[in-house]
């Protein structure tokens, strides 16, 4: 455990210095995010009638928050493995005896800081282009549960993506497909109640819909399709199961890589 934490600390220091300080990654990343968000949020304002837009702004902000969470899990955590593959250092990481999870843990503080600032920027963009969002906590328990389940699901999701990168050597199209489809098809962007019936079914089959539903419910944006208690219980069980299964999958891919060697990573 001490070794794991020491490795994670080294990853954190290296990542913080190289990505955020030396490469000015934070400044460029926020600028890029602000511009991309504006591309999608500004046209959404063409759908909105004048008047009270507070609830709509809250819905857009939560959708953006969930989408940002998937983006962070994709590009900070899962893509870290692709980066290690591209640099040709993954074999050294494995040979050093340091577990791959130390890289995930080491980047969590940077990712959390980045996510918080990015969410602040998203708030500003939504406020300017749609209106000030309402932020009322209707159900604190559901809010805590929603945030916790979301973290578990994100970690599991990044394990699966990371495993896929190691299996294929390239994951550009796979990652892009998953990172776009997931928030759309699973109720991350819009409430499940606002989705067509077949999509609702798909959304509830995945573990991703439950945290988003709980978050929206806890902030009074929309009601859950299932009973809130059921959503909480099923969400807890499904998130935990998903994390266990994804950890097994990642472990399997690491073992497979040790048998077959490391795949060459493609640029896209």
């Amino acid at each position, binding site marked *: 455990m001490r070794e794991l934490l020491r490795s994670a600390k080294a990853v954190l220091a290296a990542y913080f210095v190289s990505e955020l300080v030396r490469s000015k990654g934070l400044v460029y990343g926020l600028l890029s995010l602000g511009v991309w968000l504006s*591309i999608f949020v500004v*046209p*959404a304002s063409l*759908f*909105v009638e004048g008047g009270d837009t507070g609830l*709509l702004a809250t819905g857009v902000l939560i959708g953006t928050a969930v989408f940002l969470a998937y983006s962070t899990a994709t590009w900070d955590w899962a893509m870290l493995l692709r980066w290690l593959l591209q640099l040709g250092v993954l074999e050294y990481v494995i040979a050093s005896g340091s577990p791959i999870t130390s890289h995930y843990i080491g980047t969590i503080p940077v990712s959390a800081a980045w996510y918080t600032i990015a969410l602040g920027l998203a708030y500003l963009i939504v406020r300017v282009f749609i209106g000030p969002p309402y932020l009322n906590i209707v159900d604190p328990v559901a809010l805590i549960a929603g945030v916790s389940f979301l973290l578990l699901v994100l970690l599991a999701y990044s394990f699966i993506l990371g495993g896929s990168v190691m299996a294929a050597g390239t994951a550009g*199209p796979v990652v892009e497909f998953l990172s776009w489809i997931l928030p759309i098809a699973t109720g991350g*962007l*819009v409430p499940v109640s*606002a989705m067509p019936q077949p999509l609702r079914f798909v959304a509830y089959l995945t573990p991703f819909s439950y945290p988003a539903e709980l978050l929206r419910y806890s902030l009074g944006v929309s009601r859950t399709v299932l009973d809130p208690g059921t959503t909480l219980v099923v969400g807890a069980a499904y998130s935990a199961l998903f994390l266990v299964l994804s950890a097994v999958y990642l472990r399997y891919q690491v073992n497979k890589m040790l048998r077959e060697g490391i795949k060459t990573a493609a640029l896209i």
Partner: protein
Amino acid sequence: MLLVYSDLFRRKSLLVMFVAWPYLTTAFMLIFGYAVGSPRVFTERVGVDPIQFMIVGSYLLFSIMTIVDDIMWRPIYDEQLGTLPYIVSSPTRLITHYLSMPVPRFVASTVLGATAVFPVMVFSRGLEGLLVGLAVVLLSLISATVFTPLATAIGLSLYTLGGESWRAINVIRPLLLIVTGIYYPRWLMQWPLYLVSSLMPPAHCVEVIQRIVVGLAETYTILVSLTLAVLLGVLYSPAMARSATAWEKKKLRVGVKT
């Protein structure tokens, strides 16, 4: 050209994603829009139903981006692959190299139009949709052509000033797309943004495309806009030549990173 196509067809998952992307972004925009508002409000404001507007916008996004990306990212790819020294030392002039880059993508862009714009337009408008689709694809090719000098000038100037930084490109690229007005009609923009947008050659083509889709196009407006687009494209050409020369000189002076 053949290398680009063989690369595209060899990687089937990439090909599938290439065709699926406009549909995905359209679905994203529509679901987002329908969740926060109503398609009726959109139709009243813009003049056409959001499905047609967004599929054309998404097609433009990818048809322009596929070309601009090729130009702006290529120096970084070449540096990472280790082929940059060969390109700089090649007898082909650097400017010719960059001018020829979008050519293979024109066919890919046309294919994208056939898979994204035509089905939706024909389904919504019948035979008229076929003509609108043809106009959209043709104008998107003109749009990408007139964008090449500016995209090359910006990309290579950035590389000359700050090194091969993908981070700066990641900011500039979407910013150019916003100013071009792909998802937001130019005639609804605030005047300062409209003014900045007017300096972008593809913005004029995009406006013509959107006016055709909405049914607001007049021959005079089309001619003026297209003339402006071509004129701006020609005006930015010396900047493209200068930036290519400056970048080449810098590479020869400081060398290529390995």
